């Protein structure tokens, strides 16, 4: 077991998130910072936390806020927290919140922290739109101009095409390949059919709808009152479709390869707004403060591969390492939460976990094994619930631990794929 030898263990005390809303809908007027604040404020309120105990806040985000590069600091300046809570923003694509959680966990294990908040937030309704290079150059020249004439001359260089703004694409800077194209490629390499993908998407929606209806998913959500009227209350994730069918999913056209493609808007996770946060403590401090933690971090691992290969396969490399560090095997895992960027990626990852070839790539002689579908994403996943890049990792951590607690089970495994060919896996335990 990967203890640092000082007997310290990291407790996950509680988790809270905003509803996840498709970009441009209910949460569109909130910035990532505000979404983060909503989650953290409610986390503090619900846990009856004495905020003088909080020592640090680490937050993940993917699309940077040009005006506030360290969103963690802005979130930590919530009036509920002392101003002395230091804060840092981390970025590891879709595993950013996981990075925030493991950063805090490491600091707790080292004895540098005892109480901290980790999480992440993303507003894909508020993606910064950039001016074109030509426009920026002209503006810069105009600002340096010493006379009206010079200024006019500088501005006169702007051409109509310079007015076309640049919006950031979800594409790999190194390969230029978009996330969807990568998923499409993985589907082909791993022979994942269209129907299989649609089945997984349908399962995701059905299970998420059930989890929403019986309150298991909404238990982790802080209701958000939608400004300016405050008449509408967002209490659940608005991307979940409890009435979708295989026929409806099958009718959707492939987006990234119109001819031979299988990846559609229906079997991919949507662009989403949301924030999520978890409260982490050293086991001893949690006990001293009278908390009964949801569970503990047993182990984790990160991995990476060539983004030009199979972009979203790295969880397959991270999972066996995390399990080894935990001293456990897949059959020990009572529940498995796998982030669903694309159905094609989930199915590819599952195949990879069963494959000897991928096991060897990870440095193991035997594959991790076949994931029992009855234990996998039992309340659906990101395809239905939504995927605010920076927040998803904290959402999955909370969802997994809450459900382990409800089922009174011991171990859980989570995996998250991330842009750049990176992957994450973590093993948690209840007691």
């Amino acid at each position, binding site marked *: 077991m990967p203890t640092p030898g000082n007997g310290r263990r990291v407790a996950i005390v509680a988790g809270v998130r905003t509803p996840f809303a498709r970009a441009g809908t209910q949460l569109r007027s909130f910035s990532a910072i505000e979404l983060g604040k909503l989650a953290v404020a409610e986390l503090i*309120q*619900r*846990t009856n936390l004495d905020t003088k105990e909080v020592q640090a806040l680490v937050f993940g985000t993917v699309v940077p806020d040009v005006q506030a590069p360290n969103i963690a600091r802005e979130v930590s300046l919530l009036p*509920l927290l002392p101003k002395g809570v230091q804060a840092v923003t981390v970025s590891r694509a879709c595993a950013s919140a996981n990075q925030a959680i493991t950063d805090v966990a490491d600091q707790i294990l080292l004895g540098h922290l005892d109480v901290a908040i980790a999480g992440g937030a993303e507003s894909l309704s508020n993606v910064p739109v950039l001016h074109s290079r030509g426009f920026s150059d002209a503006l810069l020249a105009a600002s340096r101009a010493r006379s009206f004439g010079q200024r006019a001359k500088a501005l006169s260089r702007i051409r109509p095409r310079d007015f076309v703004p640049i919006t950031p694409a979800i594409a790999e800077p190194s390969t230029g390949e978009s996330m969807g194209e990568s998923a499409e490629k993985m589907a082909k390499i791993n022979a994942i059919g269209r129907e299989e993908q649609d089945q997984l998407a349908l399962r995701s929606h059905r299970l998420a709808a059930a989890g929403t209806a019986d309150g298991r998913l909404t238990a982790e959500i802080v209701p958000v009152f939608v400004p300016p009227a405050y008449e509408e*209350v967002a209490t659940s994730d608005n991307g979940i479709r409890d009435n979708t069918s295989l026929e409806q999913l099958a009718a959707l056209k492939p987006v990234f390869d119109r001819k031979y493609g299988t990846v559609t808007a229906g079997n991919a996770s949507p662009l989403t707004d949301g924030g999520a946060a978890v409260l982490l403590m050293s086991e001893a401090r949690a006990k001293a403060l009278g908390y009964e933690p949801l569970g503990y971090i047993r182990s984790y691992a990160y991995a990476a591969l060539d983004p030009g290969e199979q972009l979203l396969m790295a969880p397959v490399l991270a999972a066996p390492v995390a399990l080894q560090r935990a001293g456990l095997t897949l059959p020990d895992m009572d529940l498995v939460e796998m982030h669903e960027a694309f159905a094609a990626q989930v199915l590819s990852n599952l195949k990879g976990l069963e494959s000897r070839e991928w096991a060897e790539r990870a440095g193991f002689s035997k594959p991790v094994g076949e994931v029992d579908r009855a234990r996998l994403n039992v309340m659906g996943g990101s395809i239905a619930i939504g995927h605010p890049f920076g927040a998803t990792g904290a959402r999955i951590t909370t969802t997994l631990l809450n459900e382990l607690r409800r089922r009174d089970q011991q171990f859980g495994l989570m995996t998250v794929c991330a842009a750049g060919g990176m992957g994450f896996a973590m093993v948690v335990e209840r007691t």
Partner: protein
Amino acid sequence: MSAALSVAVRDGVAIVTLDLPGQSVNTLGRTVREEFARLFDRLERDSTVRAAVLASAKPDVFIAGADIEELSGIRLPSEAEQLSRGGQELLAQLEALRVPVVAAIHGACLGGGLEAVLACHHRVASDHPRTVFALPEVQLGLIPGAGGTQRLPRIIGLRNALDMILTGRTVRGRRALGMGLVDELVHPAILLEVAERRARELGAGTRPRSRGRRRKDAASLALDENPLGRMVVLRQARERTEARTRGQYPAPLAALDAITTGYSEGEERGYASEAHHFGDLVVSEVSRELVFLFFATQALKKDPGVAEPAPDPLPVNKLAVIGAGFMGSGIAAVAAQQDTLVRLKDTDLLRVGRGLKAARDVFEERLRKRRITRGRFDDLVTMVGGTTEYSGFGNVDLAIEAVFEDVALKHTVLRETEAVLPSDAIYASNTSTIPIATIAEVSRRPEQVLGMHFFSPVPKMPLLEVIATARTSPTAVTTAVAYGKRLGKTVIVVNDGPGFYTTRTLAAYMNEAGHLLDEGASIEALDAALVEFGFPVGPVTLLDEVGIDVAGKVAVVLGDAFGARMAPSRSLARVVAAGRTGRKGRLGFYKYDAKGKKGNVDPSIYDLLPSGAQRTELPAEDMRRRLVLAMVNEAVHCLETGILRSARDGDVGAVFGIGFPPFRGGPFRWVDSVGAAQVVERMDELNGRFPPRFQPAPMLVEMARAGRRFYPERGRAP
């Protein structure tokens, strides 16, 4: 005796520091004035001094104004006029000093303090939020008496000066700079340094003496800078002031008169007019009562709410509010503004959402008025969290229940809340009528249960009535009182009983209005009669504001509790039965438009009243007497039966809670001014006509017989 003024001369600049020994604030009492006179003589003669700086050593106060104790000891107008003349001459001496004087202002600069600063030759102020300027004299029924009515308009322009002098309005840093009230605004850390540099420049003659910084825009040139424009401005100000003061508050008109005289007949006559008016006002009844209220509220600020030795109040860092209606959200909003974390609970999310919106509206108004920044606004919004469960109650220090006035419901809420609160948390009900002991019947910790009766709208109403039962612990009371003060409220503590103090006395008054309607009084005439007495609105308008349904419930509860004296009127019962609720339902005794703006009396209301559409003309004086005496008599009952701790609390509660005219001081002050014997005589006469409603309280009868008063003598601080 140690001196208030200390002088240090540095390289030709005298740094004069005012630090009144043994006091938290600087005031301009007699000894300080004498010290200033000696100082000015010295500055005039000492040729090594070329300039001076005037500063204060108090942390957040420059000069808070005159010594009000000194003023309230004055008996004769001529004495007060002399005092004003003395102040004017002292500041004239300052203005004419050989050496220039620079005021270095940090903290509150009020009344006489501001007048002194106006006579200085340059004004530097710190840009700290605590640095504020005002001439609040009118709020005490007075006018500036040390030249303020003459100097201020000449420095900041007539219109700005009228605004400050006639309303007592507070002006902050940036605005003070903009209107030329100060010449410079600097960070507090360099205030003295800059003031000293300016003093040096003025002393060396390299900088001219300040002449204010009047704007030279078209409006200023037209209205402030020429006699014709000023005439128009002054006439309009007079009309507005007459409408606002309704002949009940003479001070603003007196100030206007002094200002007008200064322009039309010259400054010398202006100063004379100011001193003359000041003399009359200091000894006026109105000022006596307003000064009484000032001292009474000051005393309440220091009152822990229980007999000494009072236990220390517990800290309140997290507040739970159960019931997200108008009251609940108002309480949440004021609490958040004092940096308390708030958990707002209601039964469904829609109600919670409306409550959060209402709290946000309070913050938004502050933002719109630029009292808070956008960042502070965002912070305030995050301080209030909503829930439909009792989540987040585990570390609550104080819970305030603000649900519908229904005993069964209040019992349920108390049980549920107590189950999740920490064991040392205090539980308060914001009921206006139901006895706290009744609510506490189901409590496991009745010593931690009390009443906190806020008034609507919570952010605007200044009073909090804390209700202690026989079992409430002193710590619970001191905690509620201390927290109420933190919310900016004037807090009175009363003992438990139906309607406590404020609701009970108001109900007696409103009930009498109902009886008058039974008899056929016209709604307009009735309202007008009480507005004439000095109430902000008439009783029928107030019924519509409070809510007819609410008033109806109160009338029944108190009718049951106090019997024939409070027998409910038929009119109110019928209007309640007809389902009219008043302004909130857009239908009451008056008509309301869709936005809730009040129109005329709704004639169809009379069909509901026992005497029908036929209205009888009743003498205004008779109506006024009946309502006021009903209220006053009930207040005396409250004092007699120990609901009230003191007449002072009763007066403050009536003025700040239920609109008793401030210039009359309160019901007990009013009895003293009319005379208990006279009051009893009037009541006996009325009781002959309407037995037994006007049976005077035994305490009143006894006081009439013995010729006693509630307060020892006029004008003394309680």
